[in-house]
């Protein structure tokens, strides 16, 4: 399904701010897999997601998606194959447009935008039904500006929008990081049901060890622009958050990192 080979990217090459974000990433994801990517800040996990989404052109390497080489495709063209939810709940929706209009745009993801009406009675009914299933009481607010909703509500709708037309690949970029814990749990439960309902191939980046351990059927750990651990479904089942933290500490010891930093990480993540 997703096939990444030798992916490299250096930002601001040759300047003092040079960042070697991806240093040769190889990753193969089967159709229907739910892969979780974890790593510390600057490990390259979000960069990897952006590379797949088409946010920039890589310096080297190849990205194949559903049998097509998409390495040189612009972002909007890849959107035919990819559904996305961003970290910032405000990034995934157009704030001054109504809920119905936002959903209508998602319902035509990757299709030609011609002179047909964007909304029909049939479409509105479909939106209402799906939104009612969210249990957020938004089904009667189809004509409200989406910007008037909370971050959690907007993120739930963005998820719905990303999966409205079944994508070949669903990209989730720390999509609960900006939400309070209770809302984050709601959005995670919704994520699980959306992914399961259509058996979506999913690539999810997270900061949370608990999400990394509890979600998905494969776990990848990134560090300094490389994939350093790859846990299969079986290995992942035995994994606990504490084990994961130990793995992180190991990596840091190898880098001769300050042990105080490892303690801070523990306080942050567990």
């Amino acid at each position: 399904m997703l096939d990444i080979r030798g992916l490299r990217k250096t930002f601001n090459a040759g300047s003092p701010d040079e960042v070697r974000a991806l240093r040769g990433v190889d990753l193969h994801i089967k159709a229907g897999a739910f892969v979780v990517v974890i790593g510390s800040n600057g490990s390259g996990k979000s960069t990897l997601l952006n590379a797949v989404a088409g946010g920039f052109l890589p310096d080297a390497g190849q990205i194949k998606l559903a049998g097509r080489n998409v390495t040189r495709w612009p972002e909007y063209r890849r959107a035919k194959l990819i559904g996305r939810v961003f970290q910032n709940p405000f990034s995934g929706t157009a704030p001054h447009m109504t809920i119905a209009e936002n959903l209508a745009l998602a319902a035509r993801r990757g299709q030609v935008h011609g002179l047909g009406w964007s909304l029909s009675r049939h479409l509105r009914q479909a939106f209402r039904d799906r939104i009612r299933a969210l249990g957020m009481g938004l089904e009667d607010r189809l004509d409200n500006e989406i910007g008037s909703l909370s971050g959690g509500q907007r993120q739930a709708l963005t998820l719905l929008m990303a999966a409205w037309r079944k994508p070949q690949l669903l990209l989730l970029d720390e999509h609960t990081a900006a939400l309070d814990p209770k809302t984050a749990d709601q959005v995670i439960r919704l994520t699980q049901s959306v992914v399961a309902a259509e058996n979506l191939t999913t690539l999810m980046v997270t900061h949370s060890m608990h999400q990394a351990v509890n979600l998905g059927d494969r776990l990848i750990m990134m560090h300094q622009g490389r994939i350093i651990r790859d846990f299969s479904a079986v290995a992942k089942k035995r994994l606990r958050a504490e084990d994961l933290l130990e793995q992180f500490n190991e990596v840091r010891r190898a880098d001769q990192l300050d042990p105080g930093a490892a303690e801070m990480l523990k306080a942050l993540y567990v």
Partner: protein
Amino acid sequence: MNLLLGSFTIGLILSLLALGVYISFRIFNFPDMTADGSITLGAAVAAILLVHGVAPIGATLAGAAAGAASGAVTGLLHTRFRINGLLAGILVMTALYSLNLHVMGRSNVPLLSTATLAKEAETVGLAALGGLPTLHCFGWEVSVCDMAMLVFTFMAVVVVCIGLYLFFRTNLGTAMRATGDNQQMIRALGVNTDTMIVIGLALSNGLIALSGALLAQYQGFADVQMGIGMLVWGLASVIIGEALVRSRGLAMTIVGAVMGSILFRLMVAIALRWGLNPNDLKLITAVFVFVALILPGLTAKIHRRKEASAHA
């Protein structure tokens, strides 16, 4: 009364300019400076075609098309070559000044002895009223010519408004509005935002040039200087319109821009009647827009201060 009729007509003609500015500034969030050049381009193309005997409706539409092309050029400079949007507009506006002189062949083209939409409207009006040169309207005596032009302009503006409203509810129009609202989101949904910006600026400047073509026919000449300050004029109309309707709904903001344009023209006509020096007009327009832009922030600040002192 004639002053009132004239103000209404010019206000309606310039409401097309206001709608164009509304599209670029408000829907696309794009500070498009092309307007000052494209309104003159519309007037110049229409005027020169009229002088050469082209039918008024064809000449008017050709003017609008020329304006749309100039808007598309601004859009291409910005999207293809990554030139700052403000600068792209200024470049095209500057280039258009020379181009307009070339189109007209001189700095002013009079339309007094040629067939124009204004004269056609007058003919239709006279025919409809059995050849009377004046009619009584609410106790005032008005010329059929003025009235016919007002009715014609009003109908044209209504058609444009309904067309725009419907267009912005199609898939393409919705994608264009989303491009102005959240580019990241709409790209992730598969829309080429560069194309949307080019089409949007073409639409915006097409309307602005249409306004110029009609204005030239109404006032009876096209002049290379007629575009100066028009962008700020359009912006002032949009701001007044927003204050009038206080709504972000599509239909209301479109109607608001038209109402704002008419009201602003009336205010200016009255101010001139009261002895405002015409030379100060642009200065006052600019100051007005400046005040309108900072006023919401200022009142919010004062409000916050008052609240803070009330808590203290």
